[in-house]
C-alpha cells in the first residue's frame, strides 16, 4: 500500500452518470487487476474505494458511476487537479486459475475492473470471451475496448435495445461459449445468478461500503465459508465457492 499524489489528466463522461478518469502518478504499489484504490476527495471525510480499470508505469485509469455526493464532486475534477490516492489495496484476480479459455462477466460499471484482467489474460495467450450486461443501449460502455484487446464480446440489455435481450445469464444459455474458468464483477444479484448457473470454478469481485480500505476498521466484512472476511483486505476478489450469498 502506498499513499501518493496523482494529477488528473482526463475526466470524461463515457455513459449516463458514468465517467472515466485518468490520473498520473506513482503506480508502483499496484500488483494487478482486481485491486482497488482509495481516493481522497476535497471536503469529504472518508476516501472513496474505486476499482482499477487500467494502469501502467505512470498512469492509473478509473471508471466511476455518480451515485452520491462524493462521486458527484469527482466528476467536476479538472485536468491538473491533484488528489491523494492510496494504491495497492486488495487481492488480485488469480489469472493462473484459468487454464486456456476465460469467461468474463460484467454488469454495468462492474465491467471496469475486468478490462485490466482481460489485458493480463490476453498477454498470457489465453482466449477471452466477455459478456457485458446493461439496462439499455445508451449505458453500453467498453465493448470496443474489450474487442480491441482481442476478446469476443457479447452484449446483453434488459430492454433488448442492443444485443441479447435479457440478463447476462440469458446470454450464457444462448451462446455456446468455451471456457474453463470465469471472473465476474457487477451487481450482487447478477453475480449470485452467475455463480449458481456456471459449474466451472470462478472468482467474484465483491463490493461493500468501506471505512479504511486497508483492513483495520472491519467496516466491510462479509460472511464466507472461511468465516468473516474483510472485502477490502481479504477480497475484494473471492473464489466462487467461498461466498455465502
Amino acid at each position: 500500500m502506498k499513499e501518493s499524489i496523482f494529477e488528473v489528466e482526463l475526466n470524461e463522461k463515457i455513459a449516463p452518470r458514468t465517467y472515466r478518469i485518468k490520473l498520473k502518478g506513482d503506480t508502483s504499489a499496484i500488483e494487478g487487476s482486481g485491486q482497488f484504490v482509495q481516493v481522497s476527495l476535497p471536503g469529504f471525510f472518508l476516501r472513496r474505494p474505486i476499482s482499477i480499470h487500467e494502469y501502467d508505469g505512470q498512469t492509473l485509469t478509473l471508471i466511476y458511476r455518480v451515485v452520491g455526493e462524493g462521486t458527484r464532486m469527482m466528476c467536476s475534477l479538472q485536468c491538473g487537479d491533484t488528489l491523494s490516492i492510496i494504491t495497492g489495496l486488495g487481492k488480485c484476480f488469480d489469472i493462473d486459475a484459468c487454464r486456456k479459455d476465460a469467461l468474463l462477466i460484467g454488469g454495468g460499471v462492474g465491467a471496469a475492473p475486468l478490462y485490466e484482467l482481460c489485458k493480463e489474460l490476453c498477454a498470457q495467450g489465453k482466449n477471452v470471451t466477455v459478456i457485458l450486461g446493461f439496462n439499455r443501449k445508451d449505458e453500453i460502455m467498453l465493448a470496443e475496448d474489450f474487442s480491441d484487446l482481442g476478446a469476443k464480446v457479447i452484449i446483453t440489455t434488459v430492454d433488448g435495445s442492443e444485443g441479447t435481450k435479457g440478463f447476462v445469464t440469458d446470454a450464457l444459455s444462448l451462446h455456446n461459449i468455451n471456457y474453463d474458468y470465469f471472473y465476474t464483477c457487477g451487481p450482487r444479484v447478477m453475480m449470485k445468478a452467475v455463480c449458481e448457473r456456471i459449474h466451472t470454478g470462478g472468482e467474484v469481485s465483491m463490493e461493500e461500503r468501506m471505512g479504511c480500505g486497508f483492513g483495520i476498521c472491519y467496516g466491510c466484512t462479509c460472511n464466507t465459508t472461511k468465516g468473516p472476511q474483510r472485502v477490502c483486505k481479504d477480497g475484494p476478489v473471492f473464489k466462487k465457492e467461498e461466498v455465502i450469498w
Partner: protein
Amino acid sequence: MVNENLSVDLCGVKLSNPMIPASGTFGFGIEMADEFDLNVLGGISLKGTTREPRFGNPTPRIAECRSGMINSVGLQNPGIDVLVNEKLPALRRVYGGAIIANISGFSIEEYEECCAKAAQAPETDIIEVNVSCPNVHNGGMAFGTSASSAASVTSAVKKVCGEKPVFIKLSPNVTDIVSIAKACEDAGADGITLINTLLGMRIDIQRRTPVIANKMGGFSGQAVFPIAVRMVYQVSHACRIPIMGCGGVASAEDVIEMMMAGASAVQVGAENLRNPYASKEIVENLPLKMKDLGIKDINEIIGVIE
C-alpha cells in the same frame, strides 16, 4: 536538535509519548506492522474483544458524514482466547510499547472473565474496559450510561486484574459524564478513557432508508473534537485518576489541546481510517509543535486549563 520530553506515565506504565491509536481504528496493531515501525507509538489500544467470537452487525456498517463518519461494526472480533493466544503475542513480537487490551461484554460475568484473561496475558500493559459501545444491544453502552452499573463493572473487573491498571472507557451519550466518571473512580478505576462515539444516524434520501443497516451507529471524527475536549476537561477536574483523551483528534495541535484540557495520553481514532499514517505523523509533528509553543516537557501542560 529536538530534546523535548514526550514521555508520559499512565498509572506506572511508562509511554515513550502520549500517542495511542484508539480501539477499533487500528485492528490488532499487527495489521499495520508492514506500513511503519509501530514502536514510534506510545501505546496501541486493540480492537474491542468479547468472550465469544462475534461477526458483528450486518453491512453497510459505515456512513460518511460532514467532518466525520458513523460506524456500526458491532464488536466484530475473534474472541478473548484468540486475543490472548494469538493477537497479543503477535503484536508483542514487533512492538515494545504499551499494549492496551480493550474488553467489552454483555454481562458483568463476561467482563470479569475477559478482563481476567487479558490481565493474565504477559503482553498486556493496560486493560481498557469498554462500557460505551453504542452498536450492540444489551451490552456495551448499557453499562456505561448509569453511574451505578458503570461502578458495578468497575469493581468487578478490578478484582480480577491484579496489578494491571484498569481504564474505563465512557460514553458521551449521557446526561452527566462527571457523575459516571466519579462513580468509576470511587469503584477503583485506575483511569478513564473518554469519549467513545456519539450515537448518530444518516438517511439515504433517494432510497428513503437509513445508510447504516443497523439504522444507527457511532459518530466520530474531527466534528466531535470540541465535545471530547469539553468532557475531558470536566472529568479531569472532578477526578484524580488519569485520563486518556479521545475523540476527533487529527493533529499534534489537537493532542496538545486535549492534554491541556486534562488528558495524560491521547488516542487517535477515525483519522487513522482516512490516513493510515496519521498516528505516526502526529508523533513526528508533536515535538516540533511543542518547540513552537515553548513546551519542554509534555507533562507540564497536562490539565493546565483551570
